[in-house]
């Protein structure tokens, strides 16, 4: 043991000054002894603890609220949110195979189904089907109007809110609008089910339901629906349905409160020119029209 360690021990109270003196008789430890002794007398400020605490309490603190519980809760919510997002996206990626097509006003869309059947969707219509089950079950949901060129194969079914159409392989047009339902067969044969009644259409034949009543329609000669050529054709159709179609093709609102919309119209209008279209509808019926922005008002000649 060297002297330094012994001095340290002495100051730590482990050995006494006598031991040190005995061990190192030549050395004078009086300075250290005195320093050790007198330094004990140095005054440390005495604190009035209560008063200090009172002073302390007058301080303002930027106390952070204990965050543990809300934090845990938040992270739990985060995890839950992530799980929800993952599960829903997984559902949509892996389980939801519904493919749907939608058209807006004055818009048509042409596309192929997985079996290369062709579909042309008229304005403001929606068509959806299940991609995964398509091979076993060629069936789709339709609201609005569409023309189908079905390739030959198993049963092909179109479900609409009004009735369903079954074919094996043909060309046909389905028009499902408010209070109006029409199926036209252009090729092959089409089986239409409406209110449990089933009937088969041959080319040139139509099945038409207006206001829930089956209406007889004349045969037609066209090879394809006229709307594919950007024209809507009507054969003894009530005017309100024609107006409806005009609104869908031109994004306009037609006010027909001054005229009788139940009279029938036979003829056609183009999808490319609003004025010509309005004229082709109104002139044969002895009507006139006024355009203001997107609003069109129909009225009788005589009134003005």
């Amino acid at each position, binding site marked *: 043991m060297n002297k330094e360690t012994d001095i340290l021990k002495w100051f730590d109270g482990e050995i006494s000054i006598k031991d040190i003196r005995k061990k190192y008789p030549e050395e004078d430890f009086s300075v250290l002894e005195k320093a050790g002794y007198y330094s004990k007398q*140095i*005054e*440390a*400020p005495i604190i009035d603890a209560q008063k200090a605490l009172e002073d302390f309490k007058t301080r303002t603190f930027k106390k952070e609220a204990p965050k543990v519980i809300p934090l845990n809760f938040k992270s739990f919510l985060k995890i839950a949110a992530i799980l929800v997002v993952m599960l829903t996206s997984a559902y949509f990626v892996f389980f939801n195979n519904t493919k749907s097509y939608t058209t807006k006003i004055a818009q048509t869309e042409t596309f192929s189904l997985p079996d290369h059947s062709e579909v042309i969707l008229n304005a403001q219509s929606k068509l959806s089907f299940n991609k995964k089950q398509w091979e076993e079950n060629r069936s789709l949901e339709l609201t609005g109007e569409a023309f189908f060129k079905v390739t030959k194969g198993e049963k092909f079914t179109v479900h609409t809110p009004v009735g369903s159409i079954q074919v094996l392989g043909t060309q046909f047009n389905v028009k499902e609008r408010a209070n109006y339902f029409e199926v036209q067969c252009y090729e092959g044969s089409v089986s239409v089910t409406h209110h449990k009644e089933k009937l088969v259409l041959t080319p040139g034949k139509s099945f038409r339901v207006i206001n829930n009543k089956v209406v007889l329609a004349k045969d037609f000669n066209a090879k394809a629906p006229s709307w594919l050529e950007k024209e809507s054709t009507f054969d003894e159709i009530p005017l309100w349905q024609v107006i409806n179609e005009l609104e869908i093709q031109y994004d306009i609102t037609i006010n027909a409160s001054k005229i009788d919309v139940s009279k029938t119209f036979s003829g056609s209008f183009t999808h490319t020119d609003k004025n010509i279209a309005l004229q082709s509808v109104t002139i044969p019926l002895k009507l006139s029209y006024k355009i203001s922005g997107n609003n069109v008002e129909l009225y009788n000649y005589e009134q003005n």
Partner: protein
Amino acid sequence: MGTHKHKLCEESYFNSFYLEHIQAVNSFAFYKCGDKAASLDFVQDAFAKIWENCSKIDFEKAKTYLFTTVNNLFLNTVRHQKVVMSYAKASPYMDKTNQNPEYLLEEDEFKQRLLLAISDLSEDQRDVFLLNRIEDKKYREIAELLNISQKTVEKRMSGALKILRKKVDNLKI
């Protein structure tokens, strides 16, 4: 764990923690800076930190945290002013029976030299030395208090003794 952790946030617990340690930590701060007003400021600041962060501090480590914070606050303040220390009023001389005026004068002179020498020590040496001397703390206790190793405490103490011995001795001549 939770209950222990948040004990410090309870005002009654915090108050008793405050009262229990204010004296010791204030003395420590004083040994460090040698300024009564400044040391109390450091101490109050350190307690404020503990109160503000009560939920994050393990109550078993609060005491160490307190001393460490005082130390850090001291190191952060750049103004290292002159250390002013003094002796307690009633302080007996070493040789209590010797009333010889010459002896008393000599001792008083020694005491002044000692104060000067102590105020010239580094802060680390001074607080270790004074904790050992004034508070009769073992090196082990000091190490625990300051959250340093006992070896470090001994090193500082040894350094302090060497300097004191030399300075007081030199001035004597």
